């Protein structure tokens, strides 16, 4: 059932990696996700956008099997709720918006936690597990940090450590919840480019939730706009990032600039006051 995943995927045949059909999630008496259906292709990059509290995080959590849901969530054809914790974790890696980084833990040990779903209950990591985690550290330029404690890392280094842990998990589906929220504009680009490289190298399916609409449109092949728990628009960035949709669902006044080189640029629309000119 778990045949070793081949590292290079044939580019032509695109199968569905994640299938959501009529997914609803109720948390604390509130409907947080309502009747969402979507199919995400293997090796693709999908972006979840929508205002605060729209349900983006909960959709990601349902794919990772962390919340009970109604409807059906399938990864690689398997129903998440029936798959069991370990097996979900071998297929789906989640980078939460605010990961818990135990200050005392060494970077190497933290990245090694990514191997947890591959280690049997009372055994310990094999030399292969140590090798995979080492490769992840190397890939994210963290080898020099292996013995450092997490508490001593900068914001960008911490984000790389979290990504290294997710990579070490070797799950074909990578979920990122606001991966760039705490980073400056340079680090944001670096992290997303890195994710894109990893996606191509390893044939990962990437799903991220993003607030920055321009970045979301530049990296994602498809955007899913959610508002109040419902999927209200889906398609290529240019189809979803329209002035009307953003105005309706974000209550924001924006100007959309379609740039042939940069793609869709979303700019807040506010005329400069005359006194400032």
């Amino acid at each position, binding site marked *: 059932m778990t045949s070793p995943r081949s590292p290079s995927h044939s580019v032509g045949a695109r199968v569905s990696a994640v299938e959501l059909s009529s997914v609803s999630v109720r948390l604390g008496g509130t409907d947080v996700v309502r009747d969402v259906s979507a199919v995400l292709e293997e090796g693709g990059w999908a972006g979840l956008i929508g205002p605060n509290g729209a349900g983006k995080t909960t959709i990601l959590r349902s794919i990772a099997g962390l919340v009970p849901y109604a409807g059906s969530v399938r990864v690689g054809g398997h129903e998440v709720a029936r798959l069991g914790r370990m097996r979900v974790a071998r297929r789906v890696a989640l980078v939460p918006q605010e990961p818990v980084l135990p200050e005392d833990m060494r970077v190497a040990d933290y990245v090694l936690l*990514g191997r947890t779903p591959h280690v049997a209950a009372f055994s310990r990591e094999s030399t292969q597990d140590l090798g995979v985690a080492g490769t992840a550290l190397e890939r994210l330029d963290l080898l020099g940090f292996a013995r450092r404690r997490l508490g001593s890392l900068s914001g960008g280094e911490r984000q790389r450590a979290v990504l290294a842990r997710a990579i070490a998990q070797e799950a074909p589906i990578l979920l990122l919840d606001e991966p760039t929220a705490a980073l400056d504009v340079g680090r944001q680009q670096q992290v997303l480019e890195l994710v894109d490289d990893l996606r191509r190298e390893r044939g990962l399916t990437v799903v991220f939730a993003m607030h920055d609409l321009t970045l979301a449109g530049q990296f994602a092949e498809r955007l899913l706009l959610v508002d109040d728990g419902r999927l209200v628009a889906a398609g290529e960035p240019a189809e979803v990032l329209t002035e009307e949709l953003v105005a309706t669902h974000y209550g924001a006044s924006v100007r959309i600039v379609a740039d042939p080189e940069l793609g869709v640029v979303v700019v807040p629309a506010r005329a400069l006051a005359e006194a400032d000119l």
Partner: protein
Amino acid sequence: MGGARLPSPRPRALWLVAASAFLVGAAVLGVLVGPVHIGVGAILRAAASHLPLVHVGSTLSQAEDAIVFELRLPRVVLGALVGAMLAGCGAAFQGAFRNPLADPYLLGTAAGAGLGATMVVAYAPAGTRGVLVPAAAFVGAVVAVAVAYGIGRSAGGRGAVSLVLAGVVVASFFTALQTYVQQQNVDTVQEVYSWILGRLTTAGWREVLIILPYAALSAVGLVLYGRLLDVLAVGDEEAASLGIDVRRVRLVVIVAATVGTAAAVAVSGLIGFVGIIVPHTIRLLVGGSYRAVLPLSLIGGAGFLVLADVIARTVIAPAELPIGVVTAFFGAPFFALVLRRSRVTAT
């Protein structure tokens, strides 16, 4: 790709050797120190003479032999077992609840054991107390934790937090009951207090044999779960996303730690501070991974309590200090020192 290999997260052999040397040193001191002077050589000869197939004559008199092998040695072994349990279970609770201030009594063990022991002291006929106090303390401790777990689980939702709150509630209730029983039987207050302050008194090897199976079970369980406790360090949600059944891991750790703590409390009363100071000292020395902290806490705690007991029975000899007084009096400044040093050397 794949050139780099990680250092293993298991404790370095050096630390295990150092902790073991500390324990052996403390044990030797524990056997040698006492009102009657008996030399190392004589003790070794006597020990050899007790072994089968070794023909060495003992130079000890019968009384001296009894002092070493029926008084001092069982007491050293009991101290080591109790210390190992308190430190190891303290470390385990700190990991399971991600709370650095957790001690082995967190979920009501102390209050439950206290109630059990007090009831026996108050109501059982004098001759039976020796056997009944440990049994009642053990049962009381296990019942208290079971009730706390039941309440915490039914509250649901917030996982570790509701469990800790339930522990506080159960501890208050059991303590109230214990105080009531105690007030009703004022004549036994002295005996209850001496139990509560903690002591390592032995009648030969009986106490050692009582707690040995529980201690072994608990130690094995905790060491096996060290890796999973490290996963819990990233929080319940992320641990679940890494494939861990968080609730089950926490339950197993609580059961193992409760069995160990209850057994320790049953034979030694309430000895404070060991369960916090030893794991934290080790954490400051070797880092936060429970795969290192758990085994080293077991060994280090054993040595620490044996040493504390040597002090407890020599400082005001021929009288004895309650060992809980010693652990706090010497432990607190030592811990302050370690804390200071770690600030200086932290990079």
